[in-house]
C-alpha cells in the first residue's frame, strides 16, 4: 500500500514538475520562470551594480579594462586594437543580447522559429527571404573575407559576443528568453552581415515603382507630373549652389523605345516607415561661442526598447572613439574621436528597381532575355516553425535579383512575376567604412573612409578640430538615365539594366560653404547643377527649411543653443497649410465649438508644444483632409497607389482649387476644395471634442500624441516606456511622433584641447526591463537636456579615474 501510494505521489510530483517546466501557449514554464534563484526574479537588478570582475579569455591578446560610468556607458581600454572589438562585443552582448539576436532573426526571416505558427509572422519571414536578405548578407560576407583587416575586426567582435553567451546560465539569460522559453545561439559573422542588411532594408527600400506605374496609368502623363513633381521650387536642397562639379561624367545612355510598364499590383510588401529620417548639421567656428566647430545629429527611427543604439567608448593604441553603436556591428556609427565628429541622416535615393520577368513555363527554370531563354536559379528557403513542420519557400533568382512577387506571394490576384534589383544585394563594405571613420583625423581621412559605405546611403555630416565642416551624400548610386527605374521596367531586355555606378568621388558634397554651416534632413540632395540623374519618391520639405533658417541666424552658439534647435517644435508644414486652408472656411457656417477651434488655430504660433491644443486640431484636421482629397488613390482595392506628398497637396489647394481631384468620388455631389476643407474641419472638431470628453488628465498635444517607446517584441506591452510628454511631430525638427522620433541626440564641440560631447536617447544602456538603466535617459531625452559625455583620456581609463562621473563597476580582462 505504502509503495503504491508512494508511486502515485511520485508520478504526480513528476507530472507537476513537467507541466511547470513547459511553455503552454503564451504562458512561460511557470516553475522555471518563477523560481527566485534562477527565474525572472534574477533579472530584477539594482541601481547599484558595483562589481569588480576579472575575466580571462584565450582569444584575448593582451590586457584590457572596461569601466561603466553612471549612465552604464562602457569605457573600453585595450592594449591591443582587436581586443577592443572583442570587448565591444562582450559588453554589448552583456547588455543587449536578446535584441541583437532578435533583430538578426527578423532580418533573416527566422521569427517563426521563436514565435511559432502565426500567419502574420510567417508572412514577415517570407518577405525578408523573398527580398533576398540572405542573398545580400552572404554576398556581404564573401566580400568581408577578402579584406583581412575588416574580417579580423568582425571576428574579434563575434568572439567577444560568444565569450559572453558561453558564460551564461539560465539565471543570467535576458528575461525575454525566459518568457518565450528559448536560448541564444552562437553569434556568427553572418549575423553581423544580416544586421547591416536590416539597416539597409529599413532605410533604402522605399521604392514607389509599382505605385508610380499605376498612377501613370490612372492619371495620364500631365496629371502625373503635376501630382508627382521631382522637386518643387521652394525646396532648399542639402547642397545648394555651393559646390562646383568640376569633373567629366559618363552619363547613362538611354536605350530606344523605353516605355513604362503599367502594372496592376496590390498587396505590396510593407514599406519602411516613411518617417525614418533624421537631422544633422555642423556649424563653423564663426558661429559658435567657443570658436570651435560644432556638430549635431539625431536619427529618427521607430522608438524601440531596447534602443536601436548603444553608447560606447572604445580606446586602443590606434583609436579613441565614442558615440552610438548598433548592437551587432563593430565600431561606432554616429560619434566622435579626438579630432573629428560625424553623424548620419538617411540619404534618400531610389536604389531599388523592379523588372517584370517572363518565364518560359510554370517551372520557372528559364526566363526571357533579349529573345532567348536564360536559365534561372532557385534558392530554397526553409523557414523553421516552432513546434510545427517547416515552411519551404522557393525563390527564383534572375540576373536582376530575386523574383519577390509571383503567384505564391501575397493575396493579390496578379499572376505576374517581378524581380527586384537592389544595391544592398551587391557585395558591400560598410564595416570597412566605419573602421576607418572611427580613426579618421581630418577631412581627407573622412572622405577616404566613407567611400566604402554603399547602402543604406547616408548624408555624412563632418566637423574637425582643425576648423573644417563638410557634408557628403554617400552611397553606391546606380548610374541611371532620366527616369530609369521610376516605373516598373521590362525584365526581358538587358538594356534596361543599370549602367554602372556613380564614382564615389563624384558624389554630392559641400565643404566649408560661405554660410558657415552644413545640414541635411532627408530633403533633395542637390540643386539642378549636379550632372547625374538622381531621383527618389520620398523627399522631405519642412525640417530642412526650418533648420537652415535657424542656423542662418545662429550666432555665438553653445551646446544649449543647439539643444534648442534639436528640440525645436516649429511646424512649418502647419503654417503653410493653414495659410491656404483657413481662408476656405466660411465662418458663418460654423457652430460654437468649430468657431472656438478655428480661433485657436488662427491664434496659434505654429509651435507643436506639449501643452498646446491647436496642434491637436490641426493634426486631426490634416489626418481627415489628406485622405479625403486623395480618395481616388484608395478606391480600387486591387491596385496600390501612393498619395502625392503633403507639399504638393497644399500647393494644389492654393493654386488650383478647381481641380477635379478635390471631388469626393463616393458622393453624388461635385465637391470643390472649399467643400472638402470645411467637411474635414467639422469632422475633425467633432472628433477632437469626443476625445476631450473621454480623455482623463491633460487634454493637450502631448496627451493626444501620447508618444510610446515600444518594446521590440511588440506583444510584451508592459515593457513599453509610456507617459512621455513630448512636443514635436513628424515633419518638425523635434520629430517625435506617436511611436517614432529622435532615436539618438548628439552634440559635439570640436575643441582641439579635447572633444566635448552631449547626448541622450529614448531608453537606456541596459536592454533589461528589470533594470533601472532600461529607461534611465528618458526624461533628459524628452526635455532635450543632454548628458555631458565623459570622453576621458586613455590614461584616465587605465588608472580608473573618470572626471565628474561616478564609476559603477570595473571589469578587468586578460589573455588566458
Amino acid at each position, binding site marked *: 500500500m*505504502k509503495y503504491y501510494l*508512494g508511486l502515485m505521489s511520485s508520478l504526480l*510530483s513528476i507530472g*507537476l514538475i513537467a507541466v*511547470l517546466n513547459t511553455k503552454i501557449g503564451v504562458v512561460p514554464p511557470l516553475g522555471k520562470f518563477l*523560481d527566485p*534563484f534562477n527565474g525572472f526574479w534574477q533579472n*530584477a537588478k539594482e541601481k547599484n551594480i558595483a562589481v569588480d570582475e576579472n575575466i580571462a579569455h584565450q582569444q584575448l591578446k593582451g590586457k584590457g579594462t572596461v569601466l561603466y560610468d553612471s549612465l552604464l556607458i562602457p569605457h573600453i581600454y585595450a592594449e591591443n586594437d582587436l581586443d577592443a572589438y572583442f570587448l565591444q562585443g562582450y559588453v554589448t552582448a552583456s547588455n543587449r543580447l536578446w535584441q541583437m539576436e532578435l533583430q538578426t532573426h527578423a532580418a533573416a526571416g527566422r521569427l517563426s522559429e521563436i514565435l511559432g505558427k502565426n500567419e502574420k509572422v510567417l508572412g514577415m519571414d517570407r518577405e525578408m527571404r523573398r527580398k533576398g536578405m540572405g542573398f545580400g548578407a552572404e554576398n556581404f560576407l564573401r566580400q568581408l573575407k577578402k579584406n583581412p583587416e575588416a574580417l579580423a575586426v568582425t571576428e574579434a567582435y563575434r568572439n567577444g559576443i560568444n565569450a559572453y553567451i558561453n558564460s551564461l546560465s539560465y539565471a543570467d539569460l535576458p528575461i525575454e528568453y525566459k518568457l518565450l522559453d528559448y536560448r541564444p545561439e552562437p553569434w556568427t559573422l553572418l549575423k553581423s552581415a544580416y544586421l547591416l542588411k536590416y539597416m539597409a532594408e529599413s532605410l533604402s527600400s522605399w521604392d514607389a515603382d509599382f505605385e508610380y506605374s499605376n498612377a501613370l496609368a490612372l492619371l495620364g502623363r500631365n496629371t502625373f507630373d503635376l501630382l508627382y513633381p521631382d522637386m518643387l521650387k521652394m525646396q532648399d536642397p542639402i547642397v545648394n549652389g555651393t559646390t562646383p562639379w568640376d569633373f567629366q561624367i559618363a552619363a547613362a545612355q538611354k536605350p530606344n523605345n523605353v516605355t513604362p510598364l503599367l502594372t496592376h499590383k496590390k498587396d505590396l510588401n510593407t514599406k519602411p516607415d516613411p518617417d525614418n529620417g533624421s537631422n544633422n548639421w555642423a556649424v563653423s567656428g564663426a558661429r559658435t561661442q567657443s570658436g570651435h566647430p560644432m556638430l549635431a545629429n539625431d536619427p529618427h527611427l521607430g522608438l524601440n526598447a531596447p534602443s536601436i543604439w548603444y553608447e560606447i567608448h572604445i580606446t586602443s593604441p590606434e583609436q579613441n572613439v565614442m558615440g552610438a553603436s548598433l548592437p551587432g556591428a563593430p565600431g561606432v556609427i554616429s560619434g566622435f574621436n579626438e579630432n573629428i565628429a560625424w553623424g548620419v541622416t538617411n540619404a534618400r535615393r531610389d536604389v531599388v528597381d523592379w523588372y517584370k520577368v517572363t518565364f518560359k513555363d510554370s517551372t520557372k527554370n528559364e526566363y526571357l532575355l533579349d529573345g532567348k531563354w536564360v536559365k534561372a536559379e532557385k534558392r530554397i528557403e526553409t523557414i523553421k516553425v516552432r513546434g510545427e513542420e517547416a515552411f519551404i519557400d522557393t525563390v527564383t533568382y534572375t540576373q536582376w535579383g530575386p523574383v519577390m512577387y509571383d503567384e505564391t506571394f501575397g493575396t493579390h490576384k496578379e499572376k505576374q512575376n517581378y524581380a527586384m534589383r537592389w544595391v544592398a544585394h551587391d557585395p558591400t563594405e560598410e564595416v570597412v567604412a566605419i573602421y576607418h571613420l572611427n580613426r579618421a583625423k581630418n577631412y581627407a581621412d573622412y572622405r577616404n573612409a566613407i567611400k566604402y559605405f554603399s547602402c543604406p546611403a547616408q548624408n555624412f555630416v563632418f566637423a574637425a578640430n582643425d576648423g573644417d565642416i563638410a557634408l557628403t551624400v554617400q552611397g553606391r548610386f546606380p548610374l541611371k538615365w532620366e527616369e530609369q527605374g521610376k516605373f516598373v521596367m521590362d525584365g526581358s531586355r538587358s538594356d534596361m539594366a543599370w549602367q554602372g555606378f556613380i564614382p564615389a568621388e563624384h558624389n554630392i558634397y559641400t565643404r566649408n560653404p560661405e554660410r558657415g554651416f552644413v545640414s541635411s534632413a532627408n530633403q533633395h540632395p542637390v540643386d539642378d547643377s549636379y550632372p547625374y540623374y538622381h531621383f527618389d519618391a520620398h523627399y522631405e520639405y519642412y525640417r530642412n527649411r526650418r533648420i537652415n533658417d535657424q542656423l542662418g541666424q545662429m550666432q555665438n552658439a553653445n551646446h544649449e543653443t543647439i539643444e534648442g534647435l534639436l528640440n525645436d517644435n516649429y511646424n512649418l508644414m502647419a503654417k503653410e497649410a493653414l495659410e491656404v486652408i483657413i481662408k476656405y472656411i466660411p465662418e458663418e457656417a460654423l457652430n460654437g465649438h468649430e468657431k472656438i477651434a478655428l480661433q485657436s488655430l488662427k491664434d496659434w504660433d505654429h509651435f507643436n508644444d506639449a501643452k498646446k491644443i491647436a496642434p491637436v486640431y490641426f493634426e486631426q484636421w490634416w489626418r481627415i483632409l489628406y485622405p479625403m482629397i486623395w480618395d481616388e488613390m484608395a478606391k480600387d482595392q486591387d491596385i496600390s497607389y501612393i498619395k502625392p506628398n503633403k507639399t504638393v497637396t497644399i500647393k494644389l489647394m492654393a493654386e488650383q482649387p478647381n481641380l477635379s481631384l478635390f471631388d469626393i468620388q463616393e458622393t453624388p455631389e461635385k465637391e470643390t476644395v472649399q467643400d472638402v476643407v470645411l467637411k474635414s474641419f467639422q469632422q475633425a472638431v467633432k472628433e477632437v471634442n469626443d476625445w476631450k470628453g473621454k480623455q482623463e488628465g491633460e487634454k493637450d498635444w502631448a496627451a493626444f500624441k501620447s508618444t510610446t517607446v515600444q518594446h521590440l517584441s511588440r506583444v*510584451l506591452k508592459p*515593457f513599453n516606456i509610456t507617459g512621455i510628454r513630448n512636443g514635436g511631430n513628424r515633419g518638425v525638427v523635434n520629430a517625435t511622433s506617436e511611436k517614432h522620433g529622435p532615436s539618438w541626440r548628439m552634440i559635439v564641440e570640436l575643441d582641439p584641447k579635447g572633444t566635448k560631447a552631449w547626448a541622450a536617447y529614448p531608453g537606456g544602456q541596459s536592454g533589461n526591463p528589470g533594470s533601472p538603466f532600461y529607461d534611465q535617459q528618458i526624461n533628459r531625452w524628452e526635455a532635450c537636456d543632454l548628458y555631458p559625455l565623459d570622453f576621458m583620456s586613455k590614461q584616465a581609463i587605465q588608472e580608473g579615474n573618470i572626471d565628474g562621473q561616478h564609476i559603477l563597476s570595473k571589469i578587468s580582462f586578460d589573455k588566458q
Partner: protein
Amino acid sequence: MKYILLKTTLVALSAGLLQLVLPWWSIAIAAFAVNIIIGSRKFSSFLSGFLGVGILWAIVAWNIDQANASLLSSKIAEILQAPNPVSVMLFTALVGGLVGGMGGLTGGILNGSKR
C-alpha cells in the same frame, strides 16, 4: 505534527543549497529527502514541503523585489495578469510550495511512519 517546524526549516535550508547547483525542481528532492528521513503523517509531510519551499521562495523573491523597488515585478504582474507585485510573490511561493509539498508528501508516504 511536532517535527513540523524542524522539517520546514530543514526543507528550506536544503532546497536553498540544492538550488545553488541544480535546476529549480531540485526543491522537490529537498522536500522528499527531509521527509523520507524524518517520517510523519501525510498532511504534515506535505505541509513541511509546502511551507519550507514556499517560505524560502517568498523570502528570496521579497529580498530581490525590495532591492529592485518592484520595478520588474510590477511589469511581470501585468504580463501574468496579476493585480500587483505582492500577488506575483504569493504566486511564486504557491508554485514553489506545491512542488515542495508534493516532494514532501512522496517522502512521507515512503517513510511510512504514522508519527
